[in-house]
């Protein structure tokens, strides 16, 4: 029974993982193959977001028991005792990937905002955001 449950859980979790892998593939296709710069930017955001979710999954931990979910890495008391800390360590998820993703999200946002300004400038100069037409106009 426990094993079947575990297998079901694994199946469900794998669906998530493979959906994300496919998302990576689709968004890379969008970046490299779609002609519109705006579409490329949308695909770029999806790509970096998917990378971030993958990083968070690395930091996730399995459930200690079916009723006991892992907890976010925040201590809920301001004066924790040793037992509190031990309980916390045994249930909290990995905080480091979350911190890395925090950094990565902000960086991705910065780059995307700058690319949006650049795309606007491309449109001002070329009158189009289609890279094929931009390449043709450039000669």
């Amino acid at each position, binding site marked *: 029974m426990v094993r079947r449950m575990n297998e079901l*859980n694994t199946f469900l979790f794998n669906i*998530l993982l493979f959906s994300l892998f496919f998302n990576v593939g689709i968004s890379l296709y*969008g970046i490299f193959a779609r002609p*519109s710069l705006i579409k490329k930017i949308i695909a770029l955001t999806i790509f970096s977001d998917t990378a971030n979710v993958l990083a*968070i999954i690395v930091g996730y931990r399995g459930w200690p028991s079916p009723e006991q979910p892992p907890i976010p890495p925040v201590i809920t008391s301001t004066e924790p005792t040793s037992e509190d800390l031990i309980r916390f360590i045994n249930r909290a998820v990995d905080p480091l990937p979350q911190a890395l993703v925090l950094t990565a999200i902000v960086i991705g946002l910065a780059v995307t905002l700058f690319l949006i300004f650049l795309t606007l400038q491309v449109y001002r100069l070329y009158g189009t955001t289609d890279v094929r037409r931009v390449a043709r106009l450039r000669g």
Partner: protein
Amino acid sequence: MIELSTLTYLFMAMTGVVSLVATYLAILESNLIKAVVLSAIQSTTYVILFYLLMAPDIALVYIPVSVGLYPAAVLFLIKKTERTENDSNEVVASED
């Protein structure tokens, strides 16, 4: 008897599949505003994932960035530029 853990994993799987559908349609959609809206669906699914993966801190950053700021900036951009992606390989999808 179904358990909380299985339900959580089921929720993760559902959001994963929905994000796949939304991503696929967003990339292939030639109407750029629809693409933005579809990528907003994808962002919402990722918010759920961040929440379920016990990373509310990330969710708090990610919601403003992906639901609020990206669509706003891209919509500002589309308003100033072009509404559709002129993809000659594809017929522009008609609205029904």
